C-alpha cells in the first residue's frame, strides 16, 4: 500500500522557497533562514509612505521578501545600536504588505508592529498565503533621522511537501 499526504507531521521535511531582499525589491538572500541583519541608515531604500499614504516612512527602510506557502510566519526585529542622539536608541517599526513592494496591500493587526518605544523589539506574525508575495518593511516611523541597525530573528515555516509510506 502506498500513502501520500501533504501537510502532515513527520517524515521528509523540505524548506519552502522563502527569499529575502535587502532593499525594495532588493538583493535576494539564500535560505534556509538563520537570521538576518541590516541598517536602515545605510539603506538606499525609501518607501516614503505605505498603505494608501496612511503610514509615513520618511526615512530609509529595508524590505524583505517572503514567498508564501500557506504557513505561518513570525519575525522579530530587534534594534541593535544606540546611534540616535538624545534618545540613545532608535524606534524600529515593522509593516507587512502583500502583492507588490511599497504599494502593496498592508496587513492589518499583527502584520503591523510598533508597540514599543526606542530600543524595543517589534514582532510581526501572519499567515503567508500560498503563491502570494509578501514584503516585510523595516522602517522607523515618523522621523527621518530615526534609523539604525537591527537583527531579524524568528521562525519561518517548514512545510512538509511529501509524505509517503511504501
Amino acid at each position: 500500500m502506498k500513502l501520500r499526504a501533504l501537510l502532515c507531521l513527520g517524515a521528509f521535511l523540505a524548506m519552502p522557497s522563502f527569499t529575502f531582499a535587502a532593499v525594495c525589491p532588493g538583493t535576494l538572500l539564500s535560505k534556509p533562514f538563520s537570521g538576518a541583519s541590516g541598517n536602515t541608515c545605510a539603506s538606499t531604500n525609501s518607501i516614503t509612505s505605505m498603505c494608501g499614504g496612511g503610514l509615513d516612512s520618511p526615512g530609509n527602510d529595508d524590505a524583505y521578501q517572503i514567498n508564501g506557502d500557506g504557513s505561518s510566519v513570525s519575525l522579530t526585529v530587534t534594534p541593535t545600536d544606540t546611534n540616535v542622539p538624545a534618545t540613545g536608541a532608535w524606534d524600529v517599526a515593522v509593516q507587512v504588505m502583500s502583492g507588490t513592494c511599497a504599494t502593496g496591500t498592508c496587513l492589518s493587526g499583527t502584520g503591523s508592529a510598533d508597540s514599543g518605544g526606542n530600543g524595543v523589539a517589534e514582532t510581526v506574525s501572519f499567515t503567508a498565503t500560498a503563491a502570494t508575495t509578501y514584503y516585510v518593511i523595516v522602517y522607523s516611523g515618523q522621523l527621518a533621522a530615526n534609523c539604525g541597525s537591527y537583527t531579524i530573528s524568528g521562525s519561518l515555516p517548514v512545510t512538509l511537501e511529501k509524505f509517503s509510506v511504501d
Partner: protein
Amino acid sequence: MKSLKTLMLAVASLAGLGIAGSAFAQCADTNLSAWSSTFTNNATTLHVVATGLEATPSACKLTANLGGSTQQNATAIVIDTTPGATAGGEPRYRARFYFNVDAVTGASLNSGIQSTLLNVVGNSASQGFNQILRVLHRGNSSNQHVIRLAAACGANSPSADGLCRVDISNVAAGNHYLEVDIQTGATGSVTYWLDSNATSTAGTLIPSNSGTTLNMSAWGGVVSMSMGISNTSPNYRASFASATQNFDAFDSRRQTAIGP
C-alpha cells in the same frame, strides 16, 4: 464623466422605503469591503454605524478610532486604489467627503494636535513623500478646529519641503464636507471647497510662491487615496487616542464637480 468611486456607506434606496430597523441592519462592517482595502493596527478600529453626515443623512457613516493606541504608527484608514488602474495615475482627480471631528476638542486641541483625514497619493515619491495632497485636522492656540491642506508643489513651494499649504481656521463643530479638484503636472493646482457646493460656486486655489501654480510633475498622477485617522502627531495620540472621528460619502471623479 465617469465616476471613479462612490462610497456613500449607505443604501439610500432602502432607507427611503422606511423599512423598520433597516438603517441599523445595513450599517454593518461588511460594508468596508466596498473599499480596495482597510488598514488597522494595534487597537485601532474602523466601523460602519448608523446615521450619515449629510444634510439629509444617509443611513450609515464610517467611524475611525485609534482605540487608545499611542504608538506612532497607529492608523485606521480605508483605502481606494482604483485610480491606479490608469497607467501613471489619474492626471486630474476630484474627491469629496464628509467628516465630523467634534470628538477632538477642548483645551487640549492646540497647535500640537494633528491627524491626517485624507491622503491622495501620487505615482512617484519626491522630496521624501508621495502624497499629492493631504487633508489635515489640527488645532490652534485658540483651541479652534483648523483644516489644513498640504499639497505637493515642488519648486513652487515657499519652503524647502516641497509643500504648499493653506489653513482654514476656526472651523465650527458639526458635520462638514470638503471637495478638492487636483490637476497634476508641472502647472498643477488644487482647488478646494469647504461646505460649499462645487457644482455652483468657484473654489479657492491653494497658494504657492508662483501665485497658485503647483509643480507636481515629480509625483505623477493619482494612484490611491486613504481616509480615516493616520500620521497623527504625538500630542494627538497622547490626548485623543480614544477619540472617534466620523467620515461619510466619499466620492471621486476625474473632472465633474461633485457637490454636497
